[in-house]
């Protein structure tokens, strides 16, 4: 495999010839020309005009609830790529270097730290567990990163670390819901739903909120982590899959060629047009639009989801293997999707729950393998976005749903065969990069054992407030009326973390 740096030079060279996403949008009409239907209402504009029907006043959103809207305030980012490590990686092996923990390795945890605390599996007095990785400082920012992430270490100057994030949920399902919807209980819209509700999306031929999963499982909390809660269901995340149809029912039934499909959809829409003329229901116009979009989606989605045609250096950069359901492939897809104007791309990678119950969940074995799976792709994603100029208006977020204990897990009081850490809510690390973020910075600190934040503590609501701020929302004013009151992603809390904003 070529060295990353060489790949980057190659990438940079070819990039100069590549189109940016803005160009793509302008080019849309000409590119689609050969394939598209003769549109009954409008062409492939990203912001389709309102049809001129006498006496009928309709907004873009009446016809298409995902049509783009300008953000209410100045926005640094136009799109988001959120990398969620489901199960929650150990901050103590990756980013939060604690020399004191090395010293006290295998000593009983001071009782003062345990008083009044609850853990998912730890019982009684557990021992402290020193970091199982080797740390060094990297980049100009001198960020501490362990040898579990050698490639990521080279791009640390692109990111801003949050070292003292805390949550109040110590079980996966509720904690993932809290991280993604602002509430540990079901029924609230996910971050991606809020954002697509508020901003719509740029490319109507692709879903506005795309979810990609790897690790063989969906997140613990199920599809609700990309659900739309009380928002209309059109804003829920659309899972694009690596196997089978990338979007459900995308593929035509066997024996129906594209031309025939085109005739089929044209006929449907001709009849629908006649229906509109007879009944005058604007819903029928929305229906016509819906079928045109479906037809275009059938072309555009397989194109964007196909990574076979990417140049070899890109595959080397990311470490992608076409045809697999892999985090690396998803990172490359994430870049392709934001490049094409998708608003919110959410990646879930499953398998980070390092309890030490077996080899795969051992903090010194399985965790290292999981890191290998994400290290190169994440570094590649940041570099690739940067070289394409996409990092300027894309926000990248990385994190789990909570952290892991400085103590070694002793499940139900038992000695464990492998080294593991239990769920930990008091302090963990997240990072952000890209649009609006002060790169090469770090905010917040934990105590000597990495147990609790001692300065720069931020809550899950604070993280949400900050993400919304970068997208041009005031999180206190971005509301949706439901059950007789305005609901917010951040409920009644949340402070913007200004220290990591550029």
């Amino acid at each position, binding site marked *: 495999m070529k060295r990353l740096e060489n790949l980057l030079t190659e990438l940079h060279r070819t990039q100069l010839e590549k189109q940016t996403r803005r160009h793509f949008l302008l080019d849309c009409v000409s590119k689609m020309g050969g394939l598209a239907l003769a549109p009954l209402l409008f062409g492939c504009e990203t912001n389709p005009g309102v049809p001129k029907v006498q006496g009928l006043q309709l907004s873009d959103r009446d016809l298409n609830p995902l049509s783009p809207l300008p953000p209410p305030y100045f926005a640094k980012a136009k799109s988001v790529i959120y990398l969620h490590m489901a199960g929650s990686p150990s901050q103590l092996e990756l980013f939060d270097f604690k020399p004191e923990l090395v010293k006290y390795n295998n000593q009983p945890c001071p009782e003062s730290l345990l008083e009044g605390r609850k853990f998912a599996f730890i019982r009684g007095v557990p021992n402290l567990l020193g970091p199982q990785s080797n740390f060094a400082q990297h980049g100009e920012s001198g960020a501490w990163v362990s040898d579990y992430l050698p490639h990521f270490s080279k791009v640390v100057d692109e990111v801003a670390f949050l070292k003292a994030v805390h949550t109040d949920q110590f079980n996966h399902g509720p904690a993932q819901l809290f991280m993604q919807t602002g509430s540990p209980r079901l029924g609230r819209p996910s971050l991606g739903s809020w954002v697509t509700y508020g901003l719509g999306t740029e490319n109507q031929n692709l879903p506005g909120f795309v979810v990609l999963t790897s690790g063989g*499982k969906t997140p613990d909390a199920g599809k609700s982590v990309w659900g739309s809660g009380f928002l*209309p*269901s*059109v804003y*829920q995340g*659309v899972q694009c899959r690596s196997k*089978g149809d990338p979007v*459900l029912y995308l593929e035509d039934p066997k024996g129906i*060629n594209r031309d025939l499909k085109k005739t089929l959809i044209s006929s449907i829409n001709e009849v629908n047009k006649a229906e509109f003329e007879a009944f005058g229901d604007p819903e029928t116009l929305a229906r016509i639009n819906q079928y045109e979009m479906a037809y275009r989606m059938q072309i555009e989605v397989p194109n964007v989801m196909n990574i076979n045609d990417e140049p070899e250096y890109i595959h080397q950069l990311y470490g992608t293997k076409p045809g697999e359901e892999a985090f690396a492939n998803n990172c490359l897809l994430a870049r392709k999707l934001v490049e094409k104007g998708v608003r919110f791309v959410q990646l879930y990678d499953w398998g980070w729950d390092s309890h030490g119950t077996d080899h795969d969940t051992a903090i010194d074995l399985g965790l290292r393998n999981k890191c290998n799976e994400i290290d190169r792709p994440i570094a590649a994603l940041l570099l690739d976005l940067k070289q394409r100029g996409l990092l300027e208006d894309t926000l990248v977020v990385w994190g789990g749903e909570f952290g892991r204990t400085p103590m070694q897990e002793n499940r139900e009081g038992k000695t464990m065969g492998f080294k593991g850490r239990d769920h930990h809510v008091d302090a963990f690390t997240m990072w952000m990069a890209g649009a609006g973020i002060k790169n090469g910075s770090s905010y917040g600190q934990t105590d000597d054992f990495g147990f609790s934040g001692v300065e720069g503590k931020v809550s899950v609501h604070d993280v949400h407030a900050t993400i919304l701020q970068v997208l041009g929302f005031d999180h206190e004013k971005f509301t949706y009326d439901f059950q*007789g009151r305005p609901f917010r992603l951040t409920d009644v809390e949340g402070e913007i973390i200004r220290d990591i904003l550029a």
Partner: protein
Amino acid sequence: MPTKNLPALLSVLLFLLVGTILFFKEPKRVDFSTDVKPILNKHCISCHGGVKKNGGFSVLFEEEAFAVTESGQPAIIPGRPGQSEIIRRLYESDPEMRMPYHRPALSPEEIETLKNWIHQGAAWGKHWAYVPVREPKIPEASKKPFASILGKSPISTIDHFVFQKQIENGLSPSPEEESLRLLRRLALDITGLPPSEKLVADWNGGKLTYDQAVDQLLSLPSYGEKWATWWLDMARYADTKGYERDVSRTMWPYRDWVIKSLNDDMPFDRFTVEQLAGDLLPNPTEDQLIATAFHRNTMNNDEGGTEDEEFRVAAVLDRVNTTFEVWQSTTMACVQCHSHPYDPFKHEEYFQIKAFFNNSRDEDTHDEEPKLRLYSEEEKAQVQKIKTWVDQNSNNEEALAKANFLTYLEPKYHAHLCEDFVDAELIDTKWLGMWHNGTTYLRNVDTQNSDQLLLNYWADIDGTKMEIRKGGPEGEILSEFTIDKTEGRITRAIPFKEIKGKTDLFITASNPKAKPQQSTSAIVWFAFIKSLPGKNQPEYLSIEQQWKDLLATKPVTLPIMIENPDFMKRKTNVFERGNWMLLGEEVSPKTPEGLNNWNPEWPKNRLGLAFWMVDKENPLTARTLVNRVWAQIFGRGLVNTLEDMGTQSDMPSHPELLDHLAWKLMHEYDWSIKSLIKEILISHTYRQSSKISPELHQKDPENRWYARGPRFRLSAEQVRDQALAVSGLISNKMYGIGVMPHQPDGIWQTVYNGESWITSEGEDQYRRSVYTFLKRTSPYPSFISFDAGSREVCISKRIVTNTPLQALATLNDPVYIEAALKLGEKMSQETNKDPGTVIAETYEKMMLVTISESKKKSLLNLYQEALTNYRSKPEELKEFLQDKKVEGNPELAAYTLVANAMLNLDEFLTKS
């Protein structure tokens, strides 16, 4: 202007004239609810309300609004606006003093309203929805202005209310809808399916009056299947437990109960009581116990490392919130943390309501007990026999306890109550696992003086010596026994020393054969149930054997609500700021002050609460039901915010109509839902044409004034069921375990859950959608793209959306292709007719309207292009047909494509 509209115009003019005269005659009497409360809610309440009481002033409750504030004076002095601080502060020039603080000032009109209100005495009023329903006067029949439109169509009382509002808003009704289109609308609204061919023929042949058609449709079993979906959304019915592991649970007997009850038109008051408190009725029937599963649809968390008590509490709070959303259109969730910012519900009142729900036996255990054991008839007879035996040999109370235990295995103590483990563990935070020489405590147990312990457990090794002592290691031995290897889980009777009162049990295990840290067994629960009486009788052994056999059988079991016996009652405390770990003062069951009074004859438990809900003085229950039924039919409620009728909700478009129907429902129809539906369906308002002119759209885009008939996209379930019905694929089989129609591979990827989607066989693939297995973390994909929910929480309103994903589903999902093929087969058999005629006839059968020439042309064009394609490309034809495992000619393929298009037409997907 045509003279026929003159009467309408005149009445409008008259109305305006009268209004103007009244306006000038005397200053308007200010009404608190409609005039003042909205101003207070908009400008004041966020700082002077339930959450914040700045300056010691709140406008949430009457007593607070007139109380002395931090200034030492009340802010509102009735009759004296000039001396009232609330008014003075609106005029302040100092921005630090002027209210609303640092926000835009009130408009002069708003200030004037507040001043007039105080001047007129500052009478506090109740929000309309909290005032009991009284029979409103029906407006004079106003058919006259619309005589030319209405012709001979009959009008109902609903129309009087609707016409009145139309006149006020300068609108007039539409004429009656085309006959067959109206029949389709009726059938879809009542049964969720298009009308049968027989019904169409009878209707066309004039054999049925409109009323008879409505009655006939309401009597079909498909009525219950259609309306069940509406109720199951609110009941959050699903076939899995939810949360991380989301494994299957048996809930379908509850779904079937809903369908049957709706079909039997069970009065809504009984429907309510049985679901909320069927278990508390005297000698509840099996069906009444099944009904209580309504509140066992709450989720159950099996994730390792979760504390069961936390999720038991979460389920109880969900029951409070759901009950109030379903029956009271009231959002209780905010009151969990603080007094309601807008509505008259106090923080402690939330927990007083919670106290009604806090004493059910369920504890978020893995097995979801208590569960009703659905015995066979023969087994039920055995239960009865044992009951009689105990009654004869002991007493009635004892007999009932035995029968109840056989029916739902309660009361019992779950292993998760054990604590202070030494060399023992709670396996996967669920079951008691004792290692060699392990000890644990099960505290505060009331053994009810029982002479036996029923222990539920399984074990993988032989020879574990167990001991249970009273109080602690030195206490008296209450029971000694050996646990040997079992085949699966068993319930075993173990002799136990009779003791009175509550005690702590100290449990020990020893088994030198166990490996270090190996659990000697997994204990699930402990129950203290006296042994059967009559040991000296000859028949005893046979009775005892039946008892054992019944406990050992594994019938279908359904989670239900069972109340705690007195010795297991939980206390209920306020949670400070909503945090379940911060307990405030203790509270007892009580309904909120602001609503109807409590009748002292009602028991202070869920049953009493249910009686209170369906009391005719409860202002919200009937209004809520009317509003939601109306919305099912018209696509929007008379109060548009279906989930909420509180002070922040939309004002009702037709308040008197809402009350008229609510009154009728309670006092004339005795809570019959079918009568309510029929009342709506026979109105002209319902029967109108759904055509929309641009003018009408501009005046009333949301059809708030019902100047046209309802027209909106069908629900997820209806879209699929209709396609199955018109193609003839549909199965009429009712009830039973959830079915799994075709779904793409790889949809289910739940963690720690070995279950998979196994496509049903035979007719089960074509059952009505209400029977489709619903997995919460991964619902049936085409339903969620058509706005159905995952049923994790109560949903009283589905928001209808349009996305390309829906089009992809109805275009490409194999079930729609199969339906198209079925239709294509029928069409291609009509070889003696020309394609245009075949297409027109099929279209007319599906849509129940005549096809227009232009539409026919479009579809015929599709047919011809497809035909040319398949004639010239036999390999495509082969591929097309092989995929569907049929043989046929290009005509079949071409007609199938036409049918595929017809299944996707707006007029097919829409109720119009």
